[in-house]
């Protein structure tokens, strides 16, 4: 839940607003307390829709119908006012998690649970249809789980195309992936009837049993195509229910069973009684936790964070609160309790790097295998979960411990960067715990995602499920970041990345993401200023390597736009990721008069490009963004790499005034100089600790920490970090991008870049 917006009124029609449950194009859903004291979900329609007479009429009619629906599995109607300037509808508030959350956190439901779920949802739809209503948006997020059964929410009350998340397409009412073909094919409101809900029910039940929507996920276009043309993916659905689902998922609405028939087909085969524990134990626990949290709602805070407190630092009331052992102390209980345990289990594949470092480290450190809670069990055997803590003499058992995590690529293509981040984070934690004035100690959980999106998402689910984890630094790769963002958003778990810099990550609406580096679209400003300024280039050749995906597009596209707007000559060239070499592109650049070249791509193909350019005898300025800040580029390109300039959101602390202590500590502990992104990860960790310190002990929650990080300003050794409170992007201040040059077969730091040409 979000706190109320500053623009939200304190109350609507006698309901005191407590927070926002959601918002869409149509209106806002608030959590509110009615005059009688009950908690309700209050949906308020934007006034502009209410000006449409037809809309208001439909709203009134459908509210009247919903009022008549009596089903234990439909969220109860409480009150509504279709005639208010902004019409509203209140239904009972159900504190349970959605089916979507439950499946995301604990995987598909076992057959008995899925059957019970299916029966009750079918009964709910039977009753809804009998009343003359069509839901129109049956999907896992609209099924809440309670201890006694599911609750169907968010009725199609005057649902309009604007009311869906993906209607940037304007094409469909409802949610692609759970839409019947007749909804996709745009037959309008009339084509959508009870069979459309049955189709969606089939999708939901397939999702519940496999963890996947039966027509996949991805772009709207693809989903719509599959729903209309392809057969559903029911792999993993038990045979006894697969046939029923197949009939629900008929392309033609006519042969689909009615909701009543589905309910009958799923009738309990044995005793017919509804088992008290209809959900698996882990999900039951999630439901119970959520219900307990719901019961505690009267204490909900009106605002999530006191920004002043977040920035205040070390003195004042926060210290007194922070040293208390109640409340927050439980966060670290698992760690403290297990403190004496030796690291007995060996980490699984992929964690060797981490293990080696730990084994090489000073003996006074203690490594704690997390055994409590469900995190390890949920993780399966492939990923070892380590809880790590520096136990130096300064740490006191009386201080509470808070857990932060690093999710990094320690075994994949970006492992060098991931390992640098791991080292930076470790040094930050070690240093923090050594401070005698710290009001708490930090525990560190390290997880390797291999840079792989699927593995990254699974890792994020596990970290999100571990309620002791208050913040995560990472991940290393852009692809991993894209995959984990929805997971951390759902858990409102702060995610601070120093490498994932795609602009895309900022516009996904992720509430807990913090991008602690200038985003990729800013790098071209520094490249342009370097080439046209220092290097004296007149016409810049730009190569967008399609093999580098969005990264290449973001660098090359922004650079060409920037030069176009400034009226500066440039020659753009796009190279296929699939066919041919770089020769023709280079010929075209030279023929177009380019006297300098920017390569928007990654290290491996960058080396090939550099060699081809070298063979052509080109000696003009050559530049790239951080995709080439990799020793493998220098190695593979050899002589051809000499002179390349790279703009990157990383500096070399060994050459940076103010980072001497960090560099020395890094050398002492790891017997190596810090690699790029070690110091940035050290600062990201310092940022999290700083924000956490600013919160009173009882307020150190994930949500409050997110707001505190986004609201604070933190001076680290590499840069001063502050963010947009809205989307977590780093404040654009012209700093944070640094230039490197290949010289003598090495990447050498040359200093901070500038986005403008001096003088």
């Amino acid at each position, binding site marked *: 839940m979000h706190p109320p917006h500053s623009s939200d009124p304190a109350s609507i029609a006698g309901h005191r607003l407590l927070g926002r449950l*959601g*918002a869409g194009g149509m209106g806002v859903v608030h959590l509110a307390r009615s005059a009688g004291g009950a908690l309700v979900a209050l949906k308020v329609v934007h006034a502009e829709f209410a000006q449409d007479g037809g809309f208001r009429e439909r709203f009134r009619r459908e509210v009247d119908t919903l009022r008549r629906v009596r089903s234990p599995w439909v969220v109860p109607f409480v009150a509504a006012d279709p005639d208010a300037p902004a019409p509203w509808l209140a239904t009972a508030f159900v504190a349970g998690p959605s089916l979507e959350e439950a*499946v*995301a956190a604990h995987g598909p439901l076992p057959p008995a649970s899925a059957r019970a779920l299916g029966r009750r949802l079918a009964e709910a739809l039977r009753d809804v249809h009998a009343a003359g209503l069509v839901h129109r948006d049956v999907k896992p997020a609209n099924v809440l789980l309670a201890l006694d059964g599911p609750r169907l929410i*968010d009725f199609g009350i005057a649902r309009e195309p604007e009311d869906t998340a*993906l209607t*940037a*397409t*304007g*094409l469909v009412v409802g949610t692609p992936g759970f839409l019947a073909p007749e909804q996709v094919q745009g037959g309008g409101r009339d084509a959508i009837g009870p069979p459309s809900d049955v189709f969606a029910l089939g999708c939901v039940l397939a999702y519940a049993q496999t*963890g996947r*929507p039966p027509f996949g*996920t*991805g772009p709207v*276009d*693809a989903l*719509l*195509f599959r729903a209309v043309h392809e057969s559903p993916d029911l792999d993993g659905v038990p045979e006894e229910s697969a046939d029923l689902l197949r009939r629900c998922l008929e392309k033609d609405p006519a042969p689909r069973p009615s909701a009543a028939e589905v309910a009958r087909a799923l009738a309990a085969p044995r005793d017919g009684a509804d088992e008290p524990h209809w959900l698996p134990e882990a999900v039951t626990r999630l439901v119970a936790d959520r219900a307990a949290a719901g019961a505690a709602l009267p204490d909900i805070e009106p605002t999530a964070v006191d920004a002043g407190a977040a920035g205040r630092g070390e003195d004042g009331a926060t210290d007194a609160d922070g040293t208390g052992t109640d409340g927050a102390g439980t966060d670290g209980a698992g760690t403290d309790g297990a403190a004496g345990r030796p690291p007995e289990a060996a980490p699984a594949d992929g964690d060797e790097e981490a293990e080696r470092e730990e084994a090489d480290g000073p003996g006074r450190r203690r490594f704690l295998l997390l055994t409590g809670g469900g995190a390890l069990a949920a993780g399966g055997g492939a990923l070892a979960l380590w809880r790590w803590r520096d136990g130096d003499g300064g740490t006191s058992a009386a201080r509470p411990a808070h857990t932060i995590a690093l999710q990094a690529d320690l075994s994949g293509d970006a492992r060098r960067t991931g390992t640098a981040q791991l080292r930076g984070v470790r040094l930050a934690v070690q240093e923090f715990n050594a401070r005698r004035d710290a009001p708490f100690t930090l525990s560190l959980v390290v997880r390797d995602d291999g840079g792989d999106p*699927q593995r990254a*998402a699974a890792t994020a689910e596990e970290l999100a499920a571990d309620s002791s984890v208050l913040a995560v630094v990472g991940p290393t*790769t*852009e692809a991993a970041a*894209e*995959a984990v963002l929805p*997971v951390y*958003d759902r858990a409102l778990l702060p995610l601070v990345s120093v490498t994932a810099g795609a*602009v895309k990550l900022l516009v*996904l*609406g*992720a*509430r807990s993401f913090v991008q602690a580096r200038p985003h990729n*679209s800013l790098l071209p400003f520094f490249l342009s200023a370097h080439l*046209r300024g220092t290097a004296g280039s007149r016409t810049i050749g*730009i190569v*967008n390597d399609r093999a*580098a*995906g*969005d990264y290449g597009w*973001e660098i090359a*596209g*922004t650079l*060409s*736009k*920037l030069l*176009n*707007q*400034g009226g500066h000559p440039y020659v*753009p060239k*796009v*190279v*296929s*990721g699939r*066919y*041919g070499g770089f020769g023709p592109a280079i010929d075209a650049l030279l023929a177009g008069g380019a006297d300098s070249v920017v390569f928007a791509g*990654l290290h*491996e*193909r960058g080396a090939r490009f550099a060699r081809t350019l070298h063979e052509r005898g080109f000696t003009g300025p050559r530049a790239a963004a951080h995709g080439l800040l990799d020793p493998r580029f220098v190695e593979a390109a050899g002589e051809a790499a000499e002179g390349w300039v790279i703009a990157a959101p990383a500096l070399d602390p060994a050459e940076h005034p103010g980072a001497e202590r960090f560099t020395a500590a890094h050398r002492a502990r790891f017997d190596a100089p810090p690699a790029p992104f070690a110091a940035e990860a050290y600062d990201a960790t310092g940022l999290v600790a700083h924000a956490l310190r600013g919160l009173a002990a009882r307020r150190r929650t994930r949500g409050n920490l997110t707001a505190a990080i986004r609201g604070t300003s933190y001076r680290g050794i590499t840069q001063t970090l502050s963010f947009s409170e809205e989307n977590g992007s780093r404040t*654009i201040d*012209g700093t944070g991008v640094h230039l490197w040059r290949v010289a003598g077969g090495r990447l050498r730091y040359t200093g901070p870049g500038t986005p*403008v040409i001096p003088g």
Partner: protein
Amino acid sequence: MTTARPGALRAAAPLLAFCVLAAGCSAAPDGGGESASPSKGSPSAKAPEPSRSTEPEGAFAADPDRLPRTRAEALALARAVAFRPEEWGADFVALAPGESDPGTWAVLDDDCRWSREPLPDGVLAAVSRYSELPLGEGRGAVRVTAAVTVHTTEAGADTRLSTTLEEAMRCPEQEIRAGERITELNSVGRPAGQGQNYADDSVFEMGTHVRSVDGRALTSPYHWTVDRLGPVTIAVSVRGTTGEGSPEATSVSSHGTVTMRSRLVDLLGETS
């Protein structure tokens, strides 16, 4: 000017908005927490891997025996796939001319102006069909172009997509005919497996269409998509959708691309 103003850094902002609209940036939490977000183990978790060079895989396997070999066969294929006016919707009508000269294709020249030039060697056939939906007295019309191009080789069609991306970098402002311009053009490429798997490759472009009518500039959203399946590209452009009663550009566009792709798969796909 030789010095960028610091404020110019903020010029990157429009790209953010574009990214939101481009389908390649989907799979997002919507902030309300109720959207269909990718779940653990879902196919969509196979996001692009920008930290690694990847050779994208194809999404479409043409049956080599069904590929057109002659210009006549290719033209027949293009005509069978390209949408006719009535296929866009009941009230769509043909523009005059309703179809391009079959011996030509569209080329963007050095001055960022589109014109039709004779087909080059690597192109067997190119058909553009022009339709419009009149919106009523004084309210203009929605104009739609469906273009199908048959290349001799898959590599040739692949190059066409690279050229398309290049054109948006080279000419963010383009003249499509006298009195009609596209401005603020943005593009995004999505090879198979990177945000879509319905085509071997896809490029999506968006901008503002500006038309001068009686000295007034009328603006509307401009949408353009081109999908490649094997050696064939299918493109749809939509402009003029603005105001009440006008369909959404993306809605019109999806209708065309989904159906035309499906036709092409029926006509060229492996039959087994």
